[in-house]
């Protein structure tokens, strides 16, 4: 719907524009600047052209981290989306259970990221952690500092614990907006539980699911704090994701040029994937936005 232009509105958004300029545009430009130059400190810069980009894309270190990141993102999407839908479907629609469930669901989302990491780091330890201790005692060898599989499992389960709630809450919001008449009609039509899900609930959740997938993909692709706290990217490089690698490169090795190039490529990858997701999902549903009113 078109609105009348009100020029005063620009003054209202001016603070945000200034803020965004300082927090995003200017740093981004700095990064672009770094990515095409080499520096040895003392503010001495040398033109490097596309060298860093060529190096980066050819380096095994980068492609490995990228692949790890993709596997991670797709794994958690494959777990969190169905699990989130399932939990949302199981939640009560009315009564005292609603606020209880909502609060329980919101709890993990309120925990700061580094705290989540610390919780799981302790939780998983074989000596004092409840999880690690129990697993090892029932005969399952579990040590996330030594075993890449255990490390991966910990990082994934941690993310599932932390973020499935978001998917649940989004799906739940979609579910409660379905009028009761739909369920009644479906019962009259003799629809099975599956058919109700497939033809009523899923179509009505389509939009919120799109948001959930996008948010979870972007977030998980940029994941840093939690695995950094728990595994520090190890054992070896097995849980070194792009973000961890980037920090190592930029702050650990102080390779500003390559790190800047990597940041940019990283940024573009997220942008491209999000765009592809969005287009694919809006087309798969093939739902035209309902034309409302006149």
């Amino acid at each position, binding site marked *: 719907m078109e609105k009348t232009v009100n020029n005063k509105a620009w003054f209202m958004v001016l603070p945000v524009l200034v803020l965004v300029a300082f927090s995003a545009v200017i740093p981004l430009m700095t990064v672009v600047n770094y990515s095409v130059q080499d520096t040895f400190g003392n503010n001495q810069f040398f033109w490097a052209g596309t060298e860093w980009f060529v190096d980066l894309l050819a380096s095994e270190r980068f492609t490995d981290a990228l692949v790890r990141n993709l596997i991670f993102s797709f794994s958690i999407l494959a777990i969190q989306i169905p699990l989130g839908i399932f939990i949302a479907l199981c939640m009560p629609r009315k009564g005292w259970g609603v606020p209880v469930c909502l609060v329980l669901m919101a709890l993990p989302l309120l925990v700061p990221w580094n705290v989540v990491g610390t919780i799981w780091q302790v939780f998983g330890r074989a000596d004092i952690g409840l999880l690690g201790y129990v697993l090892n005692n029932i005969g399952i060898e579990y040590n996330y500092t030594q075993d890449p599989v255990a490390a991966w499992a910990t990082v994934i389960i941690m993310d599932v614990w932390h973020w499935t709630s978001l998917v649940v809450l989004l799906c739940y919001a979609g579910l409660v907006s379905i009028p009761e*008449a739909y369920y009644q009609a479906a019962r009259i039509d*003799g629809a099975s539980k599956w058919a109700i899900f497939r033809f009523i609930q899923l179509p009505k959740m389509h939009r919120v699911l799109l948001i959930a997938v996008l948010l979870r993909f972007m977030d998980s692709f940029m994941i840093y704090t939690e695995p950094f706290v728990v595994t520090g990217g190890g054992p070896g490089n097995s849980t070194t994701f792009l973000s961890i690698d980037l920090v190592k490169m930029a702050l650990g090795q102080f390779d500003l040029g390559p790190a800047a190039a990597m940041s940019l490529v990283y940024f573009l990858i997220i942008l491209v994937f999000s765009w592809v997701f969005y287009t694919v999902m809006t087309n798969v549903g093939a739902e035209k936005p309902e034309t409302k009113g006149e």
Partner: protein
Amino acid sequence: MANIELNHIRHAYMPNPQSKKDYALKEVHHTFEDGGAYALLGPSGCGKTTLLNIISGLLRPSEGDLLFDGVSVRDLPTEARNIAQVFQFPVVYDTMSVYDNLAFPLRNRGVEERVVDETVRHILNIIDLESKAHRKAQGLTADEKQKISLGRGLVRADVNAILFDEPLTVIDPHMKWVLRSQLKHLHKQFGYTMVYVTHDQTEALTFADKVVVMYEGEVVQIGTPNELFQRPQHTFVGYFIGSPGMNVVPCTLEGDGARIGEHVLPLNGIGRFGSGASLEVGVRPEFVSLRPSGEGLPIQVQGVEDVGRYRIVRAKLDDHDFHAIVMEGEEIPESPSAVISADNINLYADSWLVGREG
């Protein structure tokens, strides 16, 4: 098809109803005959939706029994009752085509695809949506969607009844005419038992053979449109049906006449049955004819509304509102009086109609 027997049904939304007031639906004891077209008519909160929900199985009545063809279905869930329902807002499966929407109830019941195809094509023809069979249901107009929801009921040969919950609310006036006459046709053609809930008198009266008028949880009258119009059993029915509603004026009895202020209306013999604390006469505005003053009840005209086909005269009779309808082309005399034939006067004692027989 089935006849639907409401056997002393009462319903309260609270757990332990004490007085009559606690019941959202006071006792209903009535049978909807097989193949009949019924309307439940009343203002919001009158209990009509409660009653419909009891029939559809969404609610289990607190007391009484519900029987389809003599078999109790009180404890059966909706899906086991074999009914179809059309809701106020169109319920369609957005992602399915029109064809699949209609096929859905059959496929759910494991009907052979050959039979499904045959039935769906037949119903598509009846509801006049053949040309849109393979369109997605989502982009259709409200009236088309309502036809789909009706069609989903029609595809099943064994439905006991089709229930309508204010199905024309979101439909444009012109389409209402089309849908209503299609519905009438279907009823004549297939003889479904139909129950239609509405607050709109025109819809109720034009649709139904028998109209059930409800008020504050009670059935106040069940009758043909004609009966409801000519002889409302309760002043509420008189008020609710007709636009404007019936004129209701307090009176006292004087021999076989009703005294209103200084005038006496002859009652043709019904007066002697009138007993009770408060007596009223009820006259439809349609039955009031306006003559030059002197002949009947003198009224003070407050305003005249011309609505094209007729004019509504808003007047006062003593201190009471009094309406008359004057058809197109008829004159309204200056300072008129209202003349009413005795046959068109109803007498009410404590709001209930005083009988004519005897």
